C-alpha cells in the first residue's frame, strides 16, 4: 500500500506540474495512469481526475496569492455558462452513454491540435486585439496584464462574447459528464473565439476549471465515485506539482507553451477517440 501511495503522489506531482503550465486539469495524465498502468476501474479514475482538476486549480493559491495575468471578470462571466454546462452534464451522465461523447470531443481536440500547429508556423506572437467590441465593452471584459517576458503591460480587448459563452457551455458539459477540467476547450473559447492572449486565457482557464469542477465533483463525491485511497495521495502530489509548475509558467514564452501544448492535446485526442471507438466493438 505504501508503494501504491508513493506512485499516486508521484503521478500527482507530474500531473500538477504539467497541468498548471498548460492550463489543463491534469486529468489527461491521471486517467490513463490509473486505468492502463494500475488497472483501476475507469469509474474511479474519473473520480480521481475531477479531484485532480480542483487540486490543480486551487493548489495554485499556495504558490500565488494573486495571479496578475488572469481576468477575474472574464472568469466569473463565463463561469455562468461552464457551471450551467457542468450541472447539465452531471444530470445527463445518469442517462447518457459517455463513450460517444469521448469520440466527439476527441475529434474536436484533434482540430484544436491542428489549429495550434498551424498558428505555430504562422504568427510570431499573440495578436493583440485592439478593435473594440460593444458587448465586451458593456460587460467590462477587456483587460491587461504585466508580461514578465516582454517586461511590459499588455492591454487587450476581447470579441465574440456569445460564441465564447457557447463553447464554455460545451466545455462545462464535457467536464460534468466525463470528469475532466476541459481546460483545452476553455482556452479555445477564450483564445481562438474571443481573441484573448494565450497567457491570460491559460491563467483564467485555470481558475475557471476549479469552479466548474466543483459543480460535478459534489455529484461524484456523494455517489462514492471518489476513492479516498486514490484521490488523497494524488491530490497531495498535485498541490506540490502545481506549485512548481505555476512558478515556472510565467517565465515561459507563449510559443514554447504552445509547443508543449500541441502533443498533449494530440495525445488527449487519440485517447478520447479510442474510448469512443469502443462503442463500435
Amino acid at each position, binding site marked *: 500500500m505504501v508503494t501504491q501511495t508513493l506512485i499516486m503522489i508521484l503521478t500527482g506531482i507530474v500531473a500538477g506540474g504539467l497541468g498548471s503550465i498548460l492550463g489543463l486539469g491534469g486529468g489527461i495524465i491521471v486517467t490513463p495512469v490509473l486505468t492502463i498502468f494500475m488497472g483501476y476501474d475507469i469509474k474511479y479514475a474519473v473520480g480521481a481526475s475531477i479531484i485532480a482538476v480542483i487540486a490543480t486549480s*486551487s493548489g495554485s493559491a499556495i504558490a500565488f496569492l*494573486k495571479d496578475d495575468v488572469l481576468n477575474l471578470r472574464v472568469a466569473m462571466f463565463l*463561469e455562468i455558462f461552464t*457551471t450551467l454546462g457542468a450541472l447539465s452534464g452531471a444530470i445527463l451522465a445518469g442517462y447518457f452513454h459517455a463513450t460517444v461523447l469521448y469520440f466527439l470531443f476527441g475529434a474536436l481536440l484533434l482540430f484544436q491540435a491542428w489549429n495550434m500547429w498551424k498558428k505555430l508556423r504562422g504568427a510570431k506572437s499573440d495578436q493583440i486585439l485592439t478593435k473594440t467590441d460593444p458587448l465586451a465593452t458593456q460587460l467590462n471584459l477587456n483587460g491587461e496584464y504585466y508580461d514578465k517576458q516582454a517586461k511590459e503591460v499588455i492591454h487587450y480587448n476581447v470579441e465574440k462574447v456569445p460564441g465564447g459563452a457557447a463553447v464554455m457551455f460545451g466545455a462545462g458539459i464535457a467536464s460534468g459528464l466525463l470528469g475532466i477540467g476541459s481546460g483545452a476547450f476553455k482556452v479555445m473559447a477564450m483564445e481562438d473565439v474571443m481573441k484573448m492572449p494565450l497567457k491570460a486565457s491559460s491563467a483564467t482557464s485555470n481558475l475557471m476549471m476549479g469552479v466548474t469542477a466543483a459543480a460535478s465533483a459534489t455529484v461524484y463525491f456523494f455517489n462514492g465515485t471518489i*476513492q479516498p485511497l486514490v484521490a488523497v495521495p494524488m491530490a*497531495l502530489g498535485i498541490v506540490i506539482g502545481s506549485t512548481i509548475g505555476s512558478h515556472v509558467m510565467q517565465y515561459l514564452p507563449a510559443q514554447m507553451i504552445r509547443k508543449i501544448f500541441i502533443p498533449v492535446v494530440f495525445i488527449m485526442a487519440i485517447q478520447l477517440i479510442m474510448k469512443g471507438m469502443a462503442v463500435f466493438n
Partner: protein
Amino acid sequence: MDQKQINGGQKSPEEEQLAQMELVIGKIMRAGVLAALAAMIIGMLLLLVHPVSDPTDFPTRLGPLLVAVGHFEPMGWMMLGLLLLIFTPVLRVIVSIVAFAKIHDHLYTTITILVLVILALAIAYGYHVG
C-alpha cells in the same frame, strides 16, 4: 509596480481596489487549501497507524462522515479533506461576490451571485441523487 506606471497602465481607483481584493481572495483560498491538505495529511497519518481492511468502505454522507472524523477514522479524515478541497472554488466565488460588491460593481456582483446560485443547485442535486 513602477514598470506598470511607466508603461501607462493607468488603473482607476476601483481597479486598484479590486486588485487588492484579489489578494484577500488569495489569502482565503490559501487558508481553505491548507485546511483541506491538513485533513488529508491527518487521514494519511491515521492510515499508517490504523490500516483499513476494506478500501471501498468510506463515508459519503455528511452525518456518517462527521462521526468518522470524530472517531479519528482514516477514511473519515481523508473524505473530509476531499470535501474541503471541493469547496475551495466555491469559497473563491463567495469571496469574489464580496469583492465586487465592495467596489460597487453591481453588474459583476449580480453575475457572481448567479454563479453561486448555479453551484448551490449543483451541490443540492449531487447530494439528493447521491
